[in-house]
């Protein structure tokens, strides 16, 4: 009898571990199951939207897609710049927003392979405490990339003229 009790005590850690293992396995599988089930609606929604859009937009060519995504004013502004600056040409690029808004990246991408020379941020150039700045020599055109509006194309002299009352160039 004493021996049986002793064996029971000895086996207790093993029994506890085995039970804990079972619980852990059950919890792991349950959480995995929940995670798969929880992902289903979102995935279905995302797939469904894309398939629906593809069906809805069948017949739209890439120009139409570009108009839809970028908006007509932005596309028009980009076309004006593309006509002014030839594909192997170059231009000066001014950021009319903040770096994290990415406006210069999007404009550069849309205008590539035209080469861009980055000038700086409009906000810094027009700040009352701005440091002296000047436009780099070379390109005739200045493109101002704006985060929430179409890009603006200015002649170099025109850009300098407009900057004058706004404290620049120094």
């Amino acid at each position, binding site marked *: 009898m004493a021996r049986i009790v002793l064996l029971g005590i000895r086996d207790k850690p093993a029994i506890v571990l085995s039970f804990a293992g079972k619980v852990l396995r059950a919890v792991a599988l349950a*959480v995995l199951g929940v995670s*798969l089930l929880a992902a289903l609606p979102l995935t279905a929604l995302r797939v469904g939207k894309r398939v629906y859009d593809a069906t809805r937009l069948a017949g739209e060519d*890439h120009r139409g897609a*570009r108009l839809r995504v970028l908006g007509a004013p932005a596309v028009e502004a980009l076309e004006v710049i593309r006509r002014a600056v030839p594909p192997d040409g170059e231009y000066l690029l001014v950021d009319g927003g903040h770096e994290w808004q990415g406006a210069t990246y*999007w404009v550069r*991408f849309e205008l*590539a392979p035209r080469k861009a020379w980055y000038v700086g941020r409009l906000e810094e150039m027009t700040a009352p405490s701005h440091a002296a700045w000047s436009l780099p020599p070379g390109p005739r055109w200045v493109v101002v990339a704006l985060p929430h509006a179409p890009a603006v194309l200015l002649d170099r002299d025109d850009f300098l003229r407009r900057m004058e009352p706004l404290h620049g160039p120094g």
Partner: protein
Amino acid sequence: MVPAEALAGLGGVALFAAPGAGLAEILPAVRELPAGRRLAYAYLLGVGWTAGVLYALSHWLAVPLRAPAILTVAALPVAAGAFSWLRRRVSHRLGRRGRRLLVQWLALAVGGLVSFGLLCDALTNPLTDWDGRMTWSAQARYVRSEGTVHPAALSQRGWYLSHPWYPLLMPVAQVAVLEVTAAEPDLHAFRAMYAAFFPAWLLLIYGGAEKLAGRSAAAWSALAAALLSFPAFAGAGGAASAYSDLPLACFFGGGLLLLLTARPSPSAGVAAGLLLAAAVLTKAEGEIYAPVALGLAAIFPLLRGRGRSRRRRALLLAVVPVVFAWILLHSWRARVPESFESFEQATSWSLLWPGIVTRIPLLAAKARSEMVYFPDWGLFWSAAPLVLLAGWRGLRRRPALPLGLATAAPLGVGWIYATVSLRPEFVVGSTWNRFLVQASVPLFVLFAMALRDLLRRTAWVPRPLRG
């Protein structure tokens, strides 16, 4: 989309699948794989071969990146594959296949639907992501315009470019698609090529997992991967974007899995070498991951007794393309005047110590918040650690160690990058998810190994779900 434009997108995928099929035919290690996995490897080999050879030809021989050169490079493996197929005069054996499990059908259906959704998106919408427009596709436009991997915007100092030192394999692949399909500059025909990496990724995960964990665990793992939003739909690194992270994950994971097979043949070595070489040319991190994969394949025989000489031969054959790619990358980069400047401006190695310790709470909290963001990852990162823990017995098998180290490599690189960064929170927020994608193939195979143990030891799970 209009039919002609959709065809251009699909033609772009075929441009790589066809030479890849040729390579798969002449490499027995790939030829003998089941159809789905063979197709995945074929696609990856096709992208690696076509874009990699064009990259080398443009850099060293100034071959213009125009349709004649692109079609010639793509046609070579097609011809070699056709010749090999005719010489063998045997059709592929349809291997004896048992009845598919329910979960296999489920994984196939979900993976197929998500891939179809991605393809619809790629054919319908222009590129709207961040890095794709900031870096990869912008570079592709400069490369295409001048027909060389040394366009003036990259080779002259001062032009406004993001990360001009990033390798150009994927931009060259974009150029190949656009040139061969004579696409207009604004046509997004290259997007389908990126979308096709998603099914290839799923098939790699399923294939690697099936070998080491069986059909059921492999299918569950592939299903879990297919249901993750980030690798599929994220505009910042998923297959829906033009980021290079998913291609890098496929090249790294695919090459690694080929080298970690029990007795890799010389052709497995060649295929793995081509994929790892593509990894080197795809993204800066690939330069680290390729040697890691080769190193892990080299130490693997220490864990396994059999087939050491065979493995050594395969490994030597894998090293050759990787070294070639490394020389190409550095020789190309030598002509980029602003090498590493964007990296140097954003980092300081002096932060590594004691930052590697003191920044742990900050980085861990930020990384965790990315991983529990439901729209990107669902609940997967809550379930995965539990599965790995509860199925730990499944990780006692030999391949688990190299797979674990291979998973740790991208995560370690990401962690160190965030540690030495001047803006650690921003870096974790913008890169950690992508490092998870880069580590995903070996990670999911590990996940499957643990899941197999878990399913075996859980009697209450219905048999059709357990396999």
